[in-house]
């Protein structure tokens, strides 16, 4: 099939092309680029990837990516711990933090429920969320999940589990946003939709 002049090159291309969005052509381009770099720079790149994978931790409270047991947001005394915003992954946290409109904390689900892709509630951090809710620390839970069938279903699942707890449940106001994914919403729109959040309509 592909005849590379070097087994080393071939192996590097194989590994790089496993990354999302990288085809074999781009992988080859990246590999050839690395060959031109100073060896110290490439070593640094390799080590930071290994360190990332080996040493990264997840915040035991909100499950975001962190260097410590408890992340910066969760350990910040100025943040309102009684308001929690539920998001799919860390990209949503970054997007919402950029708006500077939100002073509560987060809970990262690590995905959304999707039987087609084999993702069930137990693959997410839902159980921990429900435990925290039951412990009575939250006054308000804000759903900031994608406005897709899967996002809606996940929000509804959470609602059903906690509706008896007398916690205010709200949904970030969307519909005017630019994209469905929080990540792509512009800061102004996103900031406004958090401030103008509406009460969650269950059944």
């Amino acid at each position, binding site marked *: 099939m592909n005849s590379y002049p070097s087994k080393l090159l071939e192996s590097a291309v194989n590994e790089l092309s496993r990354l999302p969005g990288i085809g074999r052509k781009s992988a080859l381009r990246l590999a050839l680029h690395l060959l031109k770099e100073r060896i110290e720079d490439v070593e640094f790149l390799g080590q930071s990837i290994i360190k990332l994978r080996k040493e990264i931790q997840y915040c035991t409270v909100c499950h975001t990516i962190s260097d410590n047991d408890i992340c910066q947001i969760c350990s910040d005394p100025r943040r309102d711990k009684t308001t929690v915003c539920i998001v799919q992954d860390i990209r949503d946290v970054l997007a919402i933090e950029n708006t500077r409109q939100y002073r509560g904390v987060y809970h990262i689900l690590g995905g959304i*429920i*999707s*039987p*087609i892709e*084999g993702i*069930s*509630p*137990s693959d997410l951090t839902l159980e921990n969320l429900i435990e925290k809710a039951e412990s009575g620390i939250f006054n308000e839970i804000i759903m900031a999940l994608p406005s897709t*069938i*899967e996002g*809606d*279903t996940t929000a*509804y*699942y959470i609602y*059903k589990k906690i509706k008896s707890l007398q916690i205010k449940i709200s949904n970030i106001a969307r519909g005017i946003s630019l994209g469905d994914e929080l990540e792509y919403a512009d800061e102004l729109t996103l900031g406004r939709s958090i401030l103008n959040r509406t009460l969650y309509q269950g*059944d």
Partner: protein
Amino acid sequence: MYLQKLKLTNFKNYETADLGFSEKINCFVGDNGVGKTNLMDAIYYLSFCKSYFNPQDMMNIRHTEDAFAIHGTYLRNENQSDSVSCIQRRNQKKLFRMNKKDYDRLADHIGLFPLVIVSPSDSDLISLGSEERRKYFDGVISQFDKVYLDDLLNYSRALQHRNALLKSIAEHGGQSIESIEVWDQQMLEPGQRIFEKRTLFLKEFYPLFQNYFEFVSEGREAVNIEYESQLRNLEFKELLRSSIRKDLAMRYTTAGIHKDDFMFSISGYSAKRFGSQGQQKSLLIALKLSQFEYTRTTKGYKPILLFDDIFDKLDERRVGQLVKLVGADDFGQVFITDTQPDRIEKIFKQVEIEHRIFNVKNGAVAG
């Protein structure tokens, strides 16, 4: 609005073709297999961005060539025309252009040049399973109702999830009934709306259908479409709840609007099981003519009508009646294919309708 010009390059069996059309009736006459239907398909392409007969675009490129192109010019009024092009290169994305501008989404084009086709392959609507009939009626309703289309897409997505979940529970256990119910919730509203809209549509559609069937079959028989849905007897929520055991055993969702059917009957007998070929043909022609009229009354404009090889096996008098019908002012531009040039000529001698006849011979058209 009508199609004034059609230009083909390496489309199916045509190396090139360059045709100018009548605003009323256009007939392609010639033997079987010379490519009359391919001309119809090219016109269909310009309205729906795809073939009516072959879903694989690349297969419509003339054998060893690299690409096909279809160009159409529609006259909207005296001094305004639209040019529409479809270009398909081998192993590349299909290009679709309106007035020299590429579309990002083909869906934006569909509906701009409405068209109704009647073809022998429509008999699948009667002979095959319920899915064909749902697809047909869903297509007609969606043309007028974008909410309906959204509901269909959302419903089917939630249904796929629910089925995947049922299968996974059957295979690996775990997960509760509760996890199924969250998907029920996603299906309930769109499902209920689809049921209500199908019911309402049929109520409006049926009188037209009855009328045209009488016309085509010369009033000898009564026709009926029965909308069958489990939702008629039980509320959807109840229906899903009561079928959960069965669903778990079958590993898919057994209740819902995805099980609906539309049953055609003639004089009280199932058209699928007891209808003769002639009856089935009358039924399909009547169905498509009703679709035409429904479009005209709802949207206020006349779709282009394609009659592909439907005169075969109809007697001359009935063919004459049909041509007279579609030649009237209620109808717009019409395209007809037929294997018998004599018959067509004779009809146009009897009635005065603006028309043009094209003789088609193996990939060549003479007007």
